[in-house]
């Protein structure tokens, strides 16, 4: 469980990082379509900020949720 868990969390971090740097961010480097009026490239960064939050929050709850300790 622990090994799979660490692997998945690491993968999550890797994907979030790659999305924000070269080459991941290349695919988002455009203005259209805008998202709620925000250019696509900026919206991309906000999206990954949110995904990092959601993924890490899930990881936290799987491992430390409820009364479980470290």
């Amino acid at each position: 469980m622990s090994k799979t868990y660490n692997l998945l969390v690491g993968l999550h971090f890797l994907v979030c990082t790659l999305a924000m740097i070269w080459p991941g961010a290349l695919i988002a480097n455009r203005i259209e379509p805008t998202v709620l009026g925000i250019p696509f490239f900026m919206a991309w960064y906000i999206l990954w900020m949110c995904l990092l939050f959601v993924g890490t929050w899930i990881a936290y709850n799987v491992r430390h949720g409820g009364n479980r300790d470290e």
Partner: protein
Amino acid sequence: MSNSVIITGITLVYMAIMLWVGLRARTQESSSLEGYAAGGRHVGVVVLFFILGAEIFSAFAFLGAPGWAYKNGAPAFYILAYLSLVPIMLWMVGPRVRELGVKRGYLTHGDMLADHYSSKPLGIFAGVVGVAASVPYLTIQIAGAGLLFSAATDGLVPFWLGALIALVVTTIYVFCSGLNGIGWTNLVQGVMMIAIAWFLGVAIPDRLYGGVSEMFTQIQQQAPEYLTMPGANGMGWGFFTTAILISCFGGWTWPHMFTKFYTADSGKSLRRVSAIYPLYATLLIPLMFIGFAGILIFADTPLDRADTVLLKLVIEVAEFSPWVIGLMLSGALAAAMSTGANLAHTAGVVLTRDVFGPTIMRNSSDTDAVKVTRWSVVVISVIAYVVALLNPSSLVLLLLGAFGLIAQLVPMTLGALFFPSLKRTSAMAGAAVGSVVFLVFQFAIDSPFGWHPGVWGLLANAVILAVFQIAASKKPETEETAEFASAPIQVPEAQS
């Protein structure tokens, strides 16, 4: 004139509240070194979240990030990216650093390196570089506070006085309350920064363009190059990417961040803080809006200094009431002072613990250590203030150099945390070569491909480290490693 009085009045009230909060946080604990330096190692999730948020978001985030967006456009997202990615290292190393800290009584980065690699000079080196990085960084926060005061009050409070007020307030509560004072003031400052950034980030585009969406539509029509890479001034993906990587994966060894891992009440709290940390990073979104708002407004008469864009928009263009300007000033001062307080505190602790501890204060008591740490905070703050008034041009170079060197300690720090088989000679050889490579590309010759020099340093560091490690494993156990393995463990002044 009366406007300036209102603005000054609001800000002074804010300063008084900060002082009150900071002094109230003083507890009995503040008189032991563990209490003064690490809040007794039981800081909970909420305060920890705001400490790590407010100290990382400095005057640079509040003024510099809009400045970058205004000047370059999309390349400014590198700031958004690396500050969003901060929680990754927090998650991975934080709990382990804390665990070792509790077990072996560490309070600083140098403590851990000196003990793990049984090398006092290594700990002293980490301490000296840590202080060398903190003082110029602190100077920049103090100078930022002075500039903010004089700009927002139209010179009623001059630079030297504004900087002095900010300095005196933070020094008093750091002196008296130590980490607890920082924790509670950072909480208030953090909330203010978030509230004011969002207010201004929405209100400025609304006043000047009729909304965020409308603002981006106009930029797209008139200056679309700002909205995508490589931005208005042609920043390459190479620098963009390596700057994110070095800031995010090298930044956690900066002393004011590293020492905070020791303050957490549990590893679980550190994990929880890293899970919710992106909520703090969203503060950059409105700050980016403010920078983008400046692009068309100042298209004909570009600003001399990009990092004044937020001030100019709020004070001169958007015609906000003096009440709003006063709040803006307080919010920006919160960003500068929250980071400044952490830097002064950390520099005091590191200087006493890592530099004086193994040298001139070898046999001193815990009470003496606290006393010396407190006065170190005062002396360091005064030095930073004097340097801010003199404003030497080498300041930024010292800052870049010192923080670059700290990043070269990353591989050996990871070794101390997770890879006990990493040998001292390999770690030190890697750090030495990495430091030289970094310094050469930072100051002497242009960095290849325009990459961040720190990345080249770390690559060289890793290669040398691997070579030494492989060479050592091919030989049978040498005397040196055998001696290291059996060296008596010295717990530096473990708390009783």
